[in-house]
């Protein structure tokens, strides 16, 4: 959880009435110190279980097989005799002495590892991790001692057997990054009782739509290499270090959602680097278009009144036959003229 810097939550509220929807996007930041503190407990738990998990593999290493270690030590001593540093007469006693201290060290390592496992079962994760590391340090010390006893370069066989432990342990200690569902911190930061973690609003974006309902989808990237620092809102890729920019993108995104609800084609969302979506000109100029529509409404009202006055002046109730027909034709012609005027503006 080294990269545990900041978590974000996006709260979306939609309220719709008639044909208008309002969308509010809040971007809040979690208290990273508190999350970090809690995260360390989770890390200890995760590591302790990782070391328990590899226990069968670790104990299957030749290091813990007394006979095999004996063989490796013998081989290393024979190599010392072959290069002339050890007298063949001393082989047996050297073997006995080196084996004796190696056996003693292995027992201590085994016990330490078992103690650490027991502490894990007792949920004393921090102490357990310390004990696991003690066992690792004991193995490293044994490696140094055997290397020294067997004149370093001559200890190849024994050292290779001991490396089995070191490699497995280092692998478990490094751990893989969590995927989203496996990350215990996701559960921690989203629990209701932990809502106070989200104490600061980083940004708030509001947007109104004019047609239909608005909708938004938030997608956390599942790629373990990047999800901690990336989330996507309907294809808008946002890096944690570009948060300020993201607040504007969210606004643009809300417009895109409206556009899609009206069946207007959007840019290809499958594109990985779809960072700045193109905004449809008709939607972008919506405010101007709205003003034009209001002007047209006023104009329409004015012509409508003129037409009604003209109809009343014709006194149609008192006309009949050819006279009535002529009056109606004149009203129709006048309406056609008004329509032509409205269309030309």
């Amino acid at each position, binding site marked *: 959880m080294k990269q545990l810097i900041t978590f974000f939550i996006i709260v979306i509220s939609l309220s719709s009435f008639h044909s208008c929807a309002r969308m509010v996007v809040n971007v809040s930041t979690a208290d990273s110190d508190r999350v970090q503190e809690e995260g360390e407990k989770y890390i200890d738990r995760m590591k302790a279980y990782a070391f328990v998990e590899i226990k069968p593999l670790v104990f299957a290493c030749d290091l813990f097989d007394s006979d095999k270690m004996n063989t490796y030590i013998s081989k290393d001593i024979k190599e*010392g*005799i*072959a*290069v*002339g*540093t*050890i*007298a*063949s*007469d*001393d082989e047996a*006693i*050297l073997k006995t*002495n*080196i084996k004796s*201290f190696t056996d003693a060290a292995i027992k201590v390592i085994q016990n330490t590892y078992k103690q650490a496992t027991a502490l894990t079962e007792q949920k004393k994760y921090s102490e357990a991790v310390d004990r696991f590391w003690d066992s690792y340090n004991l193995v490293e010390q044994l490696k140094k*001692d055997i290397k*020294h*006893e067997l*004149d370093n370069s001559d200890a190849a066989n024994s050292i290779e057997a001991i490396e089995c432990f070191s490699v497995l342990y280092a692998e478990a200690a490094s751990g893989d990054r969590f995927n989203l569902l496996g990350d215990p911190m996701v559960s921690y930061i989203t629990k209701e009782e932990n809502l106070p973690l989200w104490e600061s609003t980083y940004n708030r974006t509001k947007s109104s739509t004019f047609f239909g309902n608005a909708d938004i989808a938030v997608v956390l990237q599942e790629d373990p290499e990047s999800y901690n620092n990336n989330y996507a809102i309907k294809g808008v890729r946002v890096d944690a270090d570009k948060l300020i920019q993201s607040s504007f993108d969210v606004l643009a995104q809300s417009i895109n959602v409206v556009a899609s609800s009206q069946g207007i084609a959007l840019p290809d969302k499958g594109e990985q680097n779809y960072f700045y979506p193109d905004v449809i000109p008709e939607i972008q100029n919506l405010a101007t278009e709205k003003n034009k529509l209001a002007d047209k409404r006023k104009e329409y009202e004015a012509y409508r009144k003129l037409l009604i006055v003209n109809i009343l002046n014709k006194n149609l109730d008192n006309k009949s036959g050819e006279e009535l027909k002529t009056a109606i034709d004149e009203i129709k012609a006048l309406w056609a003229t008004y329509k032509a005027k409205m269309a030309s503006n």
Partner: protein
Amino acid sequence: MKYSIGDCVKNTRVKKYSNGDIIALGTPGDVRKVYKASKSYSIMFQGAQAVHRVLEKDLEAC
């Protein structure tokens, strides 16, 4: 351990090494390395071609 690096020690037992060196009884040499676990020393004996590993029980001080 009885001896330290640089100490003068003598061989108390005839030793024959695979490189052909034969270390006679009482041959002096100086301690080059100490091996605690196996209670032995790496010694450069006078007249020898290379250093040799000798158990502590087969040495005495000069």
